[in-house]
């Protein structure tokens, strides 16, 4: 029972992500109506490389619609207890993320509304996803499951920004914040917070170690001169 309660926040988070995925998927359908320009693109016009941008948007959305639910499933204990299936789905997800999601996201980031600050936020998020995906795959290949889990949590946390960022944008709009400022906050806030949440156990360990440091201080510090020796 205690274990079930302990796992409850994680399960709730996965359910929220699943709900967010459903909303994003329904909002993304307009990107695949090849007869009309999506509203998200119209507000960005004029674009220097219109066709490349639209192709990248469609590739990014399609790969996200495939990999995001796969990430949710891969984070469940159900699939983690089935290594063969976990491996196959993990490979599909890893390939789609590294070959499509991250590169297309980088193209879109260069034209992000909100200027260099927003571009930097998207590029940072993409770098975390790409970097930790490579690290996680390499760790899995050498059966280092601790590193693999830590790396994949970073990947999933950054993918979850897609949902948390949109929720934050809606909330900030309700408070009457100007959309340009809201866009910056709703991007950087979740990107940084997601990375911190994954590093929370590590940060906690560091803080505990620092707080415990004075008690563990050795009797003889290397900065203190030895008694009887010239200082």
């Amino acid at each position, binding site marked *: 029972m205690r274990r079930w309660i302990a796992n409850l926040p994680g399960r709730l988070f996965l359910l929220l992500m699943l709900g*967010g995925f459903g*909303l*994003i998927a*329904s*909002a*993304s359908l*307009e990107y695949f109506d090849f007869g*009309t*320009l*999506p*509203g*998200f693109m*119209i*507000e960005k*016009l*004029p674009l220097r490389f219109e066709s490349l941008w639209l192709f990248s948007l469609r590739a990014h959305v399609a790969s996200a619609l495939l990999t995001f639910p796969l990430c949710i499933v891969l984070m469940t204990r159900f699939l983690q207890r089935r290594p063969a299936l976990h491996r196959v789905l993990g490979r599909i997800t890893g390939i789609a993320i590294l070959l499509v999601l991250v590169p297309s996201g980088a193209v879109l980031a260069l034209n992000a*509304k909100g200027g260099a600050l927003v571009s930097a936020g998207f590029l940072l998020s993409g770098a975390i996803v790409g970097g930790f995906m490579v690290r996680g795959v390499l760790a899995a290949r050498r059966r280092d499951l601790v590193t693999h889990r830590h790396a994949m949590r970073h990947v999933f946390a950054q993918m979850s920004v897609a949902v948390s*960022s*949109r929720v934050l*944008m*809606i909330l900030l*709009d309700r*408070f*009457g*914040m*100007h*959309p340009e400022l809201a*866009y910056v906050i709703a991007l950087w806030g979740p990107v940084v917070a997601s990375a911190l949440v994954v590093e929370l156990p590590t940060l906690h360990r560091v803080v505990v170690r620092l707080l415990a440091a004075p008690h563990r201080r050795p009797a003889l510090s290397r900065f203190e001169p030895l008694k009887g020796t010239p200082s």
Partner: protein
Amino acid sequence: MKALRWSYLGAFALASVPSLASADEPFIWAKNRVDEVIVKPVSARERGGSFSRGRPPPRQSRIRITQASESRDTSNRAFVSFAIDVRWGGSEWNKDDVVGCVYRESGKVFVKIGDGYRPAAILLGKDVEPVAGVCVAAPPPARS
């Protein structure tokens, strides 16, 4: 008493001036056309709401005619320029969110995207190319 009656009449006449002025507001046809072609359909499209990274729909919008008199393009067609300002929540008006021109005879509306003018249908997702020569006033005829 007669003077008082005349002053009442005068006050009544003055009070009715603003309503007469709004009815005769210049380019009301242009504002109506922009409202019909851009503001209403775009806000109806945005009202659907979506869980996307797109800009949230503005709370208010207003149409301004940005010139005092009609212009004529190189094809001698009369047009006036307009701007749409938008506002979110309690923030200031964002001026010139959309700028363009509306033609008097045809009722065609164009919006400025980059350096060119495209039919207003682009704001509703129609992939249309810039139209050359529209919304640009022809130079005045040279004096001999």
